[in-house]
């Protein structure tokens, strides 16, 4: 058969959904307590622990903007308000 009927696992990475959004989360590394709430609630699953510690000794989180759709759940749910949603610049290159 010439045409493959199946898809490769995880290949959706080729679709950069980051260009959907009009706002994006900015994480304040110093405020972050590494509770992982943003990691759990992100629908895209692109928040992750950086493995680096802030001044308070907590491992802080960051997000992969290539896929972030700007829903704002992370900012809403962060217990220490370390995340703010910033407006996406017009015609910005990601």
């Amino acid at each position, binding site marked *: 058969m010439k045409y493959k009927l199946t898809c490769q696992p*995880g290949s*959706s990475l080729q*679709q950069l*959904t980051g260009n959907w959004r009009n706002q994006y989360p900015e994480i304040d590394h110093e405020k972050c307590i590494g509770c992982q709430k943003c990691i759990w609630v992100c*629908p895209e*699953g692109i928040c992750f622990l950086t493995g680096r510690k802030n001044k308070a000794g907590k491992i802080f989180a960051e997000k992969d*903007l*290539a896929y972030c759709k700007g829903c704002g759940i992370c900012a*809403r749910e962060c217990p220490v308000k370390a995340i703010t949603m910033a407006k996406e610049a017009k015609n910005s290159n990601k």
Partner: protein
Amino acid sequence: MKYQSTFPHLYNPGHSACAGCGEAIAIRHLLTALGPNTIMTNATGCSEVTTTQYPLSAYKIPWLHSLFENAAPVASGVLAALKQKGLTKVQVVAVGGDGATYDIGLGFISALWERQENILYVCYDNEAYMNTGYQSSGATPLGAFTTTTPPGKNSEGNNLIKKDMIGLALAHRVPYIATATSAYPLDIQAKAKKSLEIVGPKYLQILTPCVPGWGYDPALTVELSKLAVQSGLYPLLEIINGQFTKVQKIKPVPVTEYLKPQKRFAHLFKDEAGQQVIAKLQQIADENIKKYNLV
């Protein structure tokens, strides 16, 4: 500075679920709990269409979509084949939305339960046929706007009560039954993991808010599903062999707090007839609180 994820989950981004999609949260945590030694069958619906647009796929486990109604029997066939191959440790999971579960696929699920097969069935419940444009399903709550139950001069939205799938599962003597929601992802993981300890059919129903279908600001997904639970309208339970092993206790909030942020209930706040529906919904919530000892 640009940060890049290592994409450690079994469900990759790049899928086209809406921003703020409750089901995307649920499915990822479900897969984390199940692990890579899993085969998943999936009904037609949001969880299939947003994730597997040829030639791309978000799933990193072996996954099959056949039709709208048959995720359950396809899973039965997968299980039987694995048994013949001696691969009894591979987990078989069937996933369907509320449309596939409550309506078109219900008979098939009943038979899977009757056959007592060792399969986990997960229903992600966004309370309507959201993928095709928010038409009503058997899971649509009373009073909700859907495109087939639009409110108007002669209607206050859906005039039918949400089907009781938990009751149906109990009647089938399903050994593991649980409800969960996107707001508590670790609870989803715990329940999925717990279900796998039981040999036999398992049913996990997850309330997954839908941004366009329910009509709300995408940032509120987690908050809204919390309110669904706190109002008593969506009790979070775990029932093992007919015994209630987990009941999420709540400090009840009036159902109006849950209904108000959602456009699909906005019409209920406009007139007396709508108020009567809200009262009926409050009654349903109060009955749940009593029935399941939620306080």
